[in-house]
């Protein structure tokens, strides 16, 4: 009867496997990869100006005592255009917003701002996605909440929808406290 005993163990292992599969299947799938940089200071960087009328962006600008929203975007990105009204609304509620333009051209950016408005006080130009990589962002658009000491407090992946505005304002307030 020894054969029976080990085959029972196989059966138990199989039941556990099916249970695990069922559990994972019943959960919503999170396909977003969160940055592991949350809670850590922004890495050192200094980016040149993306458009002549606004200054570029460096990590020192983010650690000036004031909390910021940092928007990672590009003129070629359609969801970035879709979130422009929400960014304008955030600015209207007093949020200071700076941005990094990913793999972009000055002319295209100026067209983009003309069409959708420009809520940013600084826009850095990142032609190699290096800053995006350093900060742990996996795509555009993404928005980070950064406190006055330059520490990353929150990451918003994807475009900002109207219902996301209160949450982002709260996070910004918490970062300022």
């Amino acid at each position: 009867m020894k054969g029976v005993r080990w085959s029972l163990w196989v059966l138990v292992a199989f039941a556990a496997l099916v249970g695990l599969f069922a559990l994972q299947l019943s959960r919503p799938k999170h396909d977003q990869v969160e940055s592991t940089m949350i809670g850590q200071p922004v890495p050192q960087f200094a980016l040149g100006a993306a458009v002549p009328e606004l200054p570029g962006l460096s990590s020192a600008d983010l650690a000036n005592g004031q909390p910021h929203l940092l928007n990672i975007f590009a003129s070629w990105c359609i969801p970035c255009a879709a979130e422009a009204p929400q960014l304008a609304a955030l600015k209207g509620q007093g949020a200071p917003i700076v941005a990094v333009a990913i793999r972009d051209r000055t002319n295209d950016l100026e067209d983009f701002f003309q069409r959708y408005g420009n809520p940013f006080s600084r826009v850095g130009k990142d032609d190699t996605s290096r800053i995006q990589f350093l900060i742990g962002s996996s795509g555009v658009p993404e928005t980070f909440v950064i406190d006055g000491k330059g520490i990353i407090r929150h990451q918003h992946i994807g475009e900002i929808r109207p219902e996301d505005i209160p949450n982002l304002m709260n996070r910004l307030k918490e970062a300022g406290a």
Partner: protein
Amino acid sequence: MIAELGLAALWLAAALAALQLVAAWLGQRAGGETLARVVRPAAVMQALLCGLAFLMLLWTFARTDLSVALVVENSGSDAPMIYKIAAAWGNHEGSMLLWITIMALAGGLIALIEHRLPEKTMLATLGAQAFVGLGFYAFIVFASNPFTRVAMPPADGNGLNPALQDIGLAMHPPTLYCGYVGLSIAFSFAVGALLTRQVTPDFARVMRPWILGAWIFLTLGITAGSYWSYYELGWGGWWFWDPVENASLMPWLAATALLHSASVLASRDALRTWTIMLGVIAFSMSMIGTFLVRSGILTSVHAFAVDPTRGTFILVLLAINIGGALALFAARAGTIAEGERFSPLSREGALVINNVTLCAVLGIVLVGTLYPLLTEAFGLRVSVGPPYFNPVSMVFVTPMLMVLAIGPLLRWRRDSFARVRAPVLLAAAAALIALLGLWLLAGMALLPLLGLTLAAGVAVSAFMPLRGRSLKRLPLSVWGMAISHFGIAVALFGMSVDTAFTVEKLTAAGVGETVAVGPWQVRLTSVEPVAGPNWTSLAGRLSASYRGGPAHELAPQSRTFWARPQTTAESALLTRWNGQLYTVIGEETQDGRWQLRLWWKPFVTFIWLGGMLIGLGGLLALIGRVASDLRRRAAARKIAARQADVAEVPR
């Protein structure tokens, strides 16, 4: 009409599967002889109808029938005909129909030709086959109907997935499915043998060609899939331990173990319960693989249409089929008499070690594949990659290959070490020379060094079983074994050399510039636009010369498809006997130069050459087995005819 005809044929096939199941079940009882006679014709009819349904699907794709939803989603009128047809199974619904079609055809074939087992065992086997089949029929007609019409046929379809417009990939799913389905036949035989308690050498002989066939298809499918991802993805890698790759590797490992244990059962009537267990495990690996791929619970580079309802359906099928078989096994295993005994130093002993190590590697791959799923249940996201799989599996692959070198030399039942001392020492010497030579000549990392050492030992020992035998009269199956084992050495050699000696260069080059990579000088001659049937691309012209020799032309492309917009890198390869130059062209940089990625990969082709040799060995063994079965059958018929003649002679 065509789509409706296909759907009707599919429903009828499902009904016949139900009939086959019920008739096989009731036919086992006393007085059920009439019903039992229905089983085989039902299986054959089911195969014909299912084949018809699949042909109808191919037809709707061939003529791009845009009133069928599946065609709209997965094809377009501008694609070449071969890819239009391949698009029929390049999607979830079509591939499930392909699966059940192959399964029904195999079941019909068994019903038609297989008469060696007791009829009761055959009935149970065909009943089990119908049971598994019914689950898939239900899955297709209720959750993945390929024949659904659309209310408003559009002007054109969405186009083919660009990645699928490649002949290698078009043939990849059917090849793997043949493998998976062959294992479902082995599973049905195992269940049939368990139900009727007929675990005999005959059972193993009947099951063996199906395992061999499945194993050949899996071997070729994995080899082709690896080569495809190598040249198509443009990363220069040939194995990524991706969940979907593992999903095809696990059934292969289980099938390899099953193949060897079935040999022991067929030749020596030993390892009875173990062979049954492996039959169940091999098919469960196919189903787990299918589940992991189709449910999308694991993140993978392979993007399939992912749908939780489908995942649930496959999970239920998995639980019923495999859970049921394991429960049956637990109930019956104790009642199956123990087979023949053998000493540890014997062919059987070596094959037991082969089985244990193969199962250990299978366990390692399974755990590595599922570990992210397990930690995710506790809220932690991890990914498991080569740093786990390579060294941990090598712990078991090393003893496995050492035994592989010795095992085929041993006699059945009992042997002495003294008899095989000379060939074993020869193989060990080859390995030792390789080890010392490599260690002195090139400072190598441990794993490739170990791989090359083992490859040398296995290559030398692979043909030793042929020693002292008449090569003309040697059975094909022994040739097959030797070639397969040699193929393992060849593949291992390719993997190790590629890992240790590949040279990689990432650079931006202007037109006219020359880049050195390994022994090659590569010049970017020009970059020109090229237009294809449904794509446009930028083709770089490279002129490469090996150690100052004559220049060869290469033309890697960065290709943009416009029906379903997407950019793919078309790598260009230059193959020499001792390796491949692998070139990829990327985007234009701002200063007008071009991103070039170049690799010199010495002996990398040996990986797939080895894979093909392994498959070829399997094919020879299969031909040898089937031929000798046919001869035996003809002889038996002759004897029966003669006996009938004798009986008719009046006394």
